[in-house]
């Protein structure tokens, strides 16, 4: 908790700001879901959200949901289609922005959620889910990560969700939101956009497992407004997604799915 809001609340606000009005958004669970709700409630009242299980919503579920398949996410949806239907819309280019998380990232925005030997021995992660599809096919992607040195690697062991590469047909990661800051991603690598209030350039360099140019003069991530914070707390009234800062949180290695 910093200055009356948590890092995760700040990340939700940053995620919301990545959504423009009238955009079609491939929503993930947790922070992106809250970000989508916040965007709809503020600057993007006509955004539409797609979930990879086939659900299309123009407003968040009325009750807390733990997975995108939970009944409250179906009740009151605009449409509940099949997985291939929403993937087809995605592949067609009808999705403006998609959110994905990963266990590991490299400077080109490649994400690994499949397997890693980063810690010395082989660790099997759950896999892509829809992450690879969103990364490959959305108009642009916003990545959400824990900012830890072992997660920010010069090369990931396995590219589950492709980032920038020569010959990419469309899209690619545009923004990376971490527990420390907000970053621009492009084929030329990672650039700091803002650091969260209280985070120093040195802290970020230390937490990034590849060289990153960070100046102390970089601007601070604009904090949540009172209204934004109120909205987030209504949506996540137990603080389930936004206040669990424990590094043991097993949810961190989940994909967007």
């Amino acid at each position, binding site marked *: 908790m910093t200055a009356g809001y948590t890092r995760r609340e700040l990340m939700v606000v940053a995620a919301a700001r990545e959504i423009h009005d009238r955009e079609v958004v491939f929503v993930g669970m947790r922070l992106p879901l809250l970000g989508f709700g916040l965007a709809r409630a503020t600057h993007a009242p006509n955004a539409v959200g797609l979930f*990879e*299980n*086939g*659900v299309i919503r123009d407003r968040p579920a009325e009750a807390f949901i*733990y*997975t*995108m*398949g*939970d*009944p409250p996410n*179906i*009740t009151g949806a605009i449409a*509940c*289609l*099949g*997985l*291939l239907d929403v*993937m087809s819309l*995605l*592949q067609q280019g009808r999705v403006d922005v998609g959110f994905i998380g990963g266990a590991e990232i490299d400077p080109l925005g*490649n994400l690994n959620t*499949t397997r890693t030997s980063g810690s010395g*021995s*082989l*660790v*099997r*992660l*759950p*896999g*892509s*889910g*829809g*992450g*690879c*599809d969103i*990364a*490959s*096919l959305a108009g642009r992607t916003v990545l959400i990560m824990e900012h830890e040195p072992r997660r920010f690697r010069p090369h990931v062991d*396995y*590219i*589950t*969700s*492709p*980032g920038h*590469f020569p*010959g*990419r*047909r469309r899209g690619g990661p545009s923004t990376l939101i971490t527990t420390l800051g907000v970053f621009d991603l492009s084929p030329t690598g990672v650039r700091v956009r803002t650091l969260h209030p209280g985070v120093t350039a040195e802290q970020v360099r230390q937490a990034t497992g590849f060289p990153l140019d960070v100046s102390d003069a970089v601007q601070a991530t604009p904090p949540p407004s009172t209204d934004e914070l109120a909205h987030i707390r209504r949506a996540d009234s137990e603080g389930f997604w936004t206040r669990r800062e424990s590094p043991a949180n*097993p*949810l*961190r*290695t*989940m*994909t967007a*799915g």
Partner: protein
Amino acid sequence: MREAIAEQVHDGDAIALGLALESGIPFAAVHEIIRQQRRDLTLIGPISDMAFDQLIAAGTTARVIAAWVGNVAGGSGYGFRRAYEQAIPRRLVMEDHSNFTVGLALQAAAMGVPFLPTFTGIGGDIVRNHPRIRPIEDPFGGPAPLAVAALRPDVAIIHVQRADAQGNAHLWGNLGLTVEAAYAARRTIITCEEIVPEDIIRSDPNRTMIPGFLTTAVVEVPGGALPSSVQGHWRRDFEPFLDYHRRSRTADGFEAWLREWVLDMPDRAAYLQHMGEAAVERLRVRDEQLAASANFAP
């Protein structure tokens, strides 16, 4: 349930299940498969939640074809990890997919074509040297897509709200890859909350996601998908996912869990009893939010 699994699921079969992703997972059938000690199975699905983890840890499974294997509530699937990382209780071959590619593989089989083209995954490792994905040219001269080969399960197991005795099945809420898998599979087992008179099904033919001539067994198993949710019938029960996550962290812990919740339970009725009436009633949906009427009069 016992006879359906005995007749329809054989050692070495490729079984598609968990097709609606986090809801309607046919746990009653999964547990019966474990009790009947099937071996060398291939499991097929998009996001399997802990059903695949249980089947793997119980030693039934030789191969998984899926996009995500774990426990949506807890993250890692420890049974899956033990098998993949340490070959405990046996070696596991993993065919990694994305949700889209496993869906296209099933859909190719459903459509009766050798493959379907896609642009997903290009530039990543899933599609590199994949046994079921190859580069292909666009004969019309556009950018080259990938071809995802057809995947035909021996059996699809699907839990629905209601079906008639012929296996015509009404399903609503999450669909995921349910329809594709039922079309693709050689055999389809329907487990359902209730077997209803055929007039109920015929009153709304657009709700029939699986026509009965594809169904090879239909079993009434109320609560057969718990602890996953079933729209209009059951809420998701969070605690069993967390409990399983904690207890399956070690092989011994898993064995104890397995004994308690699967091996010592003769059937789903016993499972529900073991949950306790209070727990069952807490999960049962009693509210009604009915679909707006649709008139099918001619």
